[in-house]
């Protein structure tokens, strides 16, 4: 088995005329790791993947796989495999022929080819369906065939473009685990494009968060959740999204000196505390079962709080919260980056700090 290879993008730009899709991407994708490229639609994540695959040329910049500059190489020369959102199975070929398509193109010996096919079919539980055409398979089975075609040639890099978006929720959970297992068992480098933060967080070793053709943050899922680098990263990861509040929301706690910052607090870290420094007025509440989502008004700024259990609140009621200093994120509006300001954090955390 080939071990995975690293992928490096150096200042990659991609533009179609006036439309700029990638605005100078620098990215290091680690060998043998599961990297998820996450972002809203139109952020350039699929373009990044297609640039790595060689299906799109770069406008400028370099693409390296391992130590090799592949910028000018065709997809075939880059020695990678890819799973498409639509699966892209050949409708006129049987499952077996679909899986070994690449091996046949590479003129692999028949015996070896059949051995590989049998192994992959066993691994993906496709053995009973090998003679069927893709149209006679369910969505989940088609997905497995696409996976089989990607892993059968044992290439060091595997790219996936939103492979689960055509499946129903239950199947998606199942395939998520299966893909992760497959990647760990075979040890190739996985680049996985998704707009679904759950997929990215649950599967990836490393998440690349993109927005408007730029990279917002590259970190482990835990790091992105615990210390988002930008306001965008803060809002994109976590459900419900993080509250981003102007200083005025904290009333007397903050003074004029803290203009030009945004303060981020996740709804789930706000805990009710009668002596808490931070006060807000209830506007409405939604009971979700395990917890209650409360919509509040903090000095004119909307605020969401997720309170444990069935805490019944009434509109107009004033709640006081305390927040651990480590759960307060400060962003500089001008530089769009994260600020380390312990003094400011301490004032918000208030009496508890």
């Amino acid at each position, binding site marked *: 088995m080939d071990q995975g290879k690293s992928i490096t993008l150096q200042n990659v730009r991609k533009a179609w005329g006036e439309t700029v899709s990638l605005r100078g991407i620098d990215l290091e994708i680690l060998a043998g790791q599961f990297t998820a490229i996450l972002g809203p639609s139109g952020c350039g994540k699929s373009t990044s993947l297609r640039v790595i*695959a060689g*299906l799109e040329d770069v406008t400028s910049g370099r693409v390296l796989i391992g130590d090799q500059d592949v910028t000018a190489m*065709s*997809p*075939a020369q880059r020695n*990678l*495999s*890819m799973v*498409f*959102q*639509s699966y*892209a199975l*050949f*409708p*006129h070929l049987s499952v077996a022929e679909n899986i070994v*398509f*690449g091996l046949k*193109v*590479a003129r692999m010996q028949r015996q070896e080819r059949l051995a590989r096919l049998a192994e992959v079919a066993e691994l993906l539980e496709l053995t009973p369906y090998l003679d069927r*055409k893709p*149209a006679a398979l369910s969505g989940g089975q088609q997905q497995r065939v696409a996976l089989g*075609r990607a892993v059968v*040639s044992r290439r060091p890099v595997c790219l996936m473009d939103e492979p689960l978006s055509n499946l129903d929720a239950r199947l998606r959970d199942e395939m998520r685990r299966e893909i992760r297992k497959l990647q760990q068992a075979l040890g190739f480098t996985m680049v996985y494009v998704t707009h679904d933060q759950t997929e990215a967080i649950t599967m990836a070793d490393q998440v690349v968060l993109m927005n408007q053709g730029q990279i917002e943050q590259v970190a482990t899922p835990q790091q992105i959740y615990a210390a988002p680098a930008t306001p965008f990263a803060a809002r994109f990861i976590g459900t419900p999204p993080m509250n981003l509040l102007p200083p005025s929301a904290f009333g007397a706690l903050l003074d004029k000196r803290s203009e030009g910052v945004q303060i981020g607090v996740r709804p789930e870290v706000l805990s009710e505390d009668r002596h808490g420094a931070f006060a807000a007025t209830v506007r409405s509440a939604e009971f979700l079962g395990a917890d209650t989502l409360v919509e509040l008004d903090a000095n004119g700024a909307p605020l969401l709080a997720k309170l444990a259990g069935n805490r019944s609140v009434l509109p107009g009621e004033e709640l006081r919260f305390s927040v651990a200093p480590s759960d307060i994120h400060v962003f500089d509006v001008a530089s769009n980056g994260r600020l380390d300001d312990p003094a400011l954090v301490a004032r918000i955390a208030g009496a508890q700090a």
Partner: protein
Amino acid sequence: MQRTRQWIHAWLLLLPAFVFLLAFTHVPAITTLWNSFWTTARGRRPSRWAGLDNYDTLIADPVFWKVLVNNIWFAIGTIPTSIVIALVMAVWVNQKLAGRGFVRMAYFTPTVLPMIAVANIWMFFYTPGFGLIDQITGLFGMAQSNILGQSDTALVGVMIVTIWKEAGFFMIFYLAALQTIPPSLIEAARIEGAGPWTIFRRVTFPLLMPTTLFVSVNAVVNSFRMVDHIFILTGGGPDNASSLLLFYIYEVAFRFWDTAYAATLTVVLLAILAALAIGQFFFFDRKVHYK
């Protein structure tokens, strides 16, 4: 009661189309078959039952065999060539190239032109002495040619015109089919290491098989049906060298006024076409992937 009403409604709805099909297709076909068993009425001699006499005449008729062989050569010469050219043109104009719209239109133009007009254009190419072909070959000092006037080349000249006319028409079908192939299939094949030729052979062409079947059935029917250009180009000559079955039927029926024998020839033509169409469906059916 309810069922009867539904039946009546169904038949009423089918009736108009059915009447026209009967009047213009099925009744004439059966009349033709019936006429082929009678002699042609001439002057004071009314037509009388002839049994299979007309068919005996047909088997003994050297001109019939000549035009049948001509037609087979005509089909062999035009069908594969025009289909291959159509496919190549379609793949070519399906790519991203500058002036794609213009090229597509240019390839399709022969289809829009009436066959008579096409034949007249080609007359201008073929005319001995001052036709386009002779003008060009004349530049290199070559002798004059008379492609349509010689019995060994007349049919080839007619075939070239037919290919020129048909390829653009078939191209449109291939182009439409090519555009229904999802680009991700081609991309998947490229990632798997396939070159352009392998992609064409193993992905594109198999997916075009339904179109190929459709186009080839059409081409076969056309090769027995298109005669307009023969009137202009050669008139079937010289010595029936470029005459086709349908053209011969026309001559027998409306020049020689032997309608009974023409009916006999028509029955043979119908039988050939039916056999070919059915045969093609059975031959291709195993190889065609329908979605």
